[in-house]
């Protein structure tokens, strides 16, 4: 399980949320209103909409009312934006034009949604023949040259903007289809959809209840973009003189204004300005919604800078000292790794620091296996990652120090793991065995390539020598046919095999310390036993120190010399493996061991009823 999920499970439950609507949407709306561009674009669109809706009331003249005696007039108190070449009021035409332009753009988007959305939902949910067929139709639609189709439509059905937008809607429907289909495909096999099926929900209610919510947001964003495109294309056609001259629309006004561009340039300006404002607002609104959906990534960065500036003064002294790394405490140089009062935290949006590791101290000697045991969210992986220097960018060392082989990798007072110091160690003297073997091999390269390249870089040996070594390593980790595995791609080997490959990689540069993060959790029990055997053999043969992060006491009993028990970021208990597993002193360790099923009476209650009240 990934650490991010674990920490989310750790966070305390917030108070009951409001009972209105879905909470997801309301927070998105709130974030949307915090975005100045979002508010601005919404205000512009709202104003445009209101002006269009109340055009009949607001416009002083009919859209085609012409005053022949007053053509191309400058703005005055009667015609506030002047008149055009036929003596029609520009302001009135602009308002009626907004009505027609916006409504027809909406028609275009509506047609595209009505066709694309249901088709996408059905194709995504049922797949099979309908999907194959609709993919053909979509490909045909997308290969049609849009402008030529629209010109043909005009020739066949006349200059009506409604008909043109109807066909444009059909031409644009594939974009909705593809969007919807891929969104649905991503949730079609989610377990909650299966659970709904088991509950006997009809397909229709599954789609409306469980699937539609996934496509809602992308559809809104897409619609903002499509409406903009519709306005642009429609106006483009009308500008070319293909519009209906009897109706006022922005495109028609633009076309007429162009004819008098030398006499009265403002005739061109107003419709263009209205269009630019509307299309711009639509695009910005789409962006704002997308930003609102993509969490508060921006706030974090700003906070980080503020945080750094704040700390700069106090840390400058420590930084000056860190150029010449302080010597470690005398008498502790012989420890391979020594972690002293380590604290790891994540600065939060509100300025506080959420500690995930707090005041943890332990050491590992050469040739020793130390187990770090704990449940999810106990901070065991974070501790291991801070030794490796692989914490996320947002993490801070909030206290303590880490030393490796007599030198500080994190000196006291430093708030960051020094990548400069660690990159010299990582891969050469400290190596790592991950939890998920498959996701730690790059599917694009052969296993051999992924073993050889680091050796060539780190050890500076030739490629052929590295290849020879890789073969030997593969047979060392118990792979029966090293040659075949060497040439294989990651997807061609099993999970257990992939883990052996990663172990081979971890020992390839003869490290002093191996950090194994739940190395067998993703494996079957029988494979786990083999991999544990392998780690034990290698450890004995090479005499390396090992830090084994795990939640499984069986694995601890199998491998470890000493154990550290962690809970909620703190170190609970430390000691030799036999002491901890047989006579744990702390209650937490006792509870954990009591939860083991081994040796329990079948069907008996595991947790004494007195402890039941504790929340999980």
């Amino acid at each position, binding site marked *: 399980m990934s650490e991010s*999920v674990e920490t*989310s*499970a*750790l966070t305390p*439950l917030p108070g*009951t*949320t409001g009972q209105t609507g879905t*909470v*997801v949407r309301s927070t998105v709306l709130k974030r949307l209103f915090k975005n100045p561009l979002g508010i601005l674009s919404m205000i512009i669109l709202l104003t445009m909409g209101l002006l269009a809706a109340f055009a009949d009331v607001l416009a002083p003249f009919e859209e085609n009312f012409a005053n022949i005696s007053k053509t191309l007039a400058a703005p005055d108190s009667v015609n506030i934006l002047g008149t055009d070449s036929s003596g029609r009021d520009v302001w009135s035409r602009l308002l009626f034009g907004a009505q027609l332009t916006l409504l027809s753009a909406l028609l275009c988007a509506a047609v595209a949604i009505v066709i694309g959305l249901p088709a996408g939902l059905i194709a995504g949910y049922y797949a099979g023949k309908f999907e194959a067929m609709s993919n053909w139709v979509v490909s045909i639609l997308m290969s049609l040259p849009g402008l030529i189709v629209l010109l043909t439509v005009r020739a066949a059905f006349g200059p009506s903007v409604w008909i043109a937008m109807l066909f444009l809607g059909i031409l644009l429907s594939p974009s909705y289809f593809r969007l919807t289909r891929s969104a649905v495909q991503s949730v079609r096999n*989610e*377990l*909650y959809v*299966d*659970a709904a*099926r*088991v*509950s*006997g929900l*009809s*397909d229709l209610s599954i789609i409306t*209840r469980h699937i539609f*919510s996934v496509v809602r947001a992308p559809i809104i964003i897409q619609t903002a973009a499509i409406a903009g495109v519709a306005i642009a294309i429609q106006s483009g056609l009308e500008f070319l003189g293909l519009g209906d001259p009897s109706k006022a629309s922005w495109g028609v006004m633009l076309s007429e204004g162009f004819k008098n561009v030398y006499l009265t340039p403002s005739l061109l300006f107003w419709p263009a300005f209205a269009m630019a404002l509307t299309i711009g607002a639509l695009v910005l609104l789409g962006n704002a919604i997308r930003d609102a959906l993509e969490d508060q990534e921006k706030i974090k960065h700003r906070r980080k800078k503020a945080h750094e500036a704040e700390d700069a003064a106090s840390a400058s002294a420590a930084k000056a000292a860190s150029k010449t790394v302080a010597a470690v405490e005398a008498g502790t140089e012989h420890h391979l790794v020594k972690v002293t009062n380590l604290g790891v935290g994540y600065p939060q949006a509100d300025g506080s620091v959420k500690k995930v590791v707090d005041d943890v101290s332990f050491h590992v000697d050469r040739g020793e296996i130390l187990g770090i045991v704990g*449940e*999810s969210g106990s901070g065991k992986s974070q501790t291991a990652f801070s030794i490796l220097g692989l914490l996320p960018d947002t993490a801070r060392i909030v206290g303590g120090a880490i030393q490796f082989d007599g030198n500080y990798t994190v000196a006291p007072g430093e708030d960051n793991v020094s990548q400069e110091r660690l990159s010299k160690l990582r891969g050469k003297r400290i190596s790592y065995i991950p939890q998920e073997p498959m996701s730690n091999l790059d599917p694009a390269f052969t296993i051999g390539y992924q073993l050889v390249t680091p050796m060539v870089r780190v050890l500076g040996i030739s490629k052929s020598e590295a290849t020879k070594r890789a073969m030997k390593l593969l047979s060392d980790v118990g792979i029966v046919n090293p040659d075949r595995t060497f040439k294989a791609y990651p997807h061609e080997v099993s*999970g257990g095999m992939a883990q052996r490959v990663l172990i081979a990689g971890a020992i390839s540069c003869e490290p002093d310390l191996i950090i194994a993060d739940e190395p067998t959790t993703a494996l*079957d*029990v*029988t*494979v*786990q*036993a083999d991999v*544990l*055997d392998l780690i034990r053999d290698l450890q004995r043969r090479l005499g390396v120190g090992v830090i084994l992060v795990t*939640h*499984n*006491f*069986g694995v601890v*009993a*199998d491998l470890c010399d000493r154990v550290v028990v962690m809970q909620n970021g703190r170190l609970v208990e430390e000691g030799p*493996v*036999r002491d901890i*597993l*047989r006579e744990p002193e702390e209650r937490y360790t006792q*509870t*954990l*061991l*009591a*939860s*083991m*099923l*081994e040796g329990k*009476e*079948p*069907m008996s*209650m*595991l*947790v004494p009823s007195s402890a*039941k009240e504790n*929340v*999980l």
Partner: protein
Amino acid sequence: MTETAALGAALSAPAREGLLRVENLVVEYAGKGFRAKKFRALTDINISIGHGETLGLVGESGSGKTTLGRAVLGLAPVSGGKVTFEGKDISQATRKQRRVLSRDMQVVFQDPYTSLNPALEIGDILAEPLGVQGMEQAAAKKRVRELLDQVGLPSDAIHRLPREFSGGQRQRVAIARALALSPKLIVCDEPVSALDLSTQARVLDLFLQIQKDTGVSYLFVSHDLDVVRHISHRVAVMYRGEIVEQGPAEIVTRNPDHPYTQRLLLASPVPDPDRQEKRRAERHRLLEEQRQQNEQAAALA
């Protein structure tokens, strides 16, 4: 112990006939590409579950144990054999028949993070199966409260979203959803594998308590022999799409016959260094023995 014995005695052969029977079940998936060979996920499966009984299904990843659970639920295609529930053949049940069936047969999935729709409140999630059966809103609301109480969640959980809960609490919600219609059989697909050790213990307790209170039957799928031993009356072991061994839990999980089950038993480590060392040695001995037997068999053939 007396309770288990009594329960075991009550489950004589005729009682077991009762609830679910799977006979010669075959599940095949269409291969990729035109006229591709079908992929056979399950071969000739025979199991039965009686009222109030738990059948544990154990096996490694890819052994087909999850597929068997899904075939019973109608989520995997049955290409051969028969699934009978209370005497009725349900192997090719339509969606309408399934809706009726869902009153008696429910599911708890492995991953509590994806088995609950993240956009729905807990109350809506729990009311869903009730609504399908046409229960009125007021009655459904009352039932939801009862369910939350039954699985040990506070009643203010109704208006919260799944992400506000920890893994163990979410699994409780999933269990409550399965219990909503008071089913006779719950298919549990690795329901405790994603949970921490202490959480796993509490959730197992909950499963046992519910069975005691309601007499529900479980088809309990897990890769963990210890979990299956703890919760099951009988255990079936799956290996490469077939059931290789089946019998009372105590026997199958302590003195198994089949070489694979023997390997499985000795592979799971015990939480004591010295006993684990012994078990490790036993395992190596067993692997060596089985290797020699295989060689002999190969030599004879």
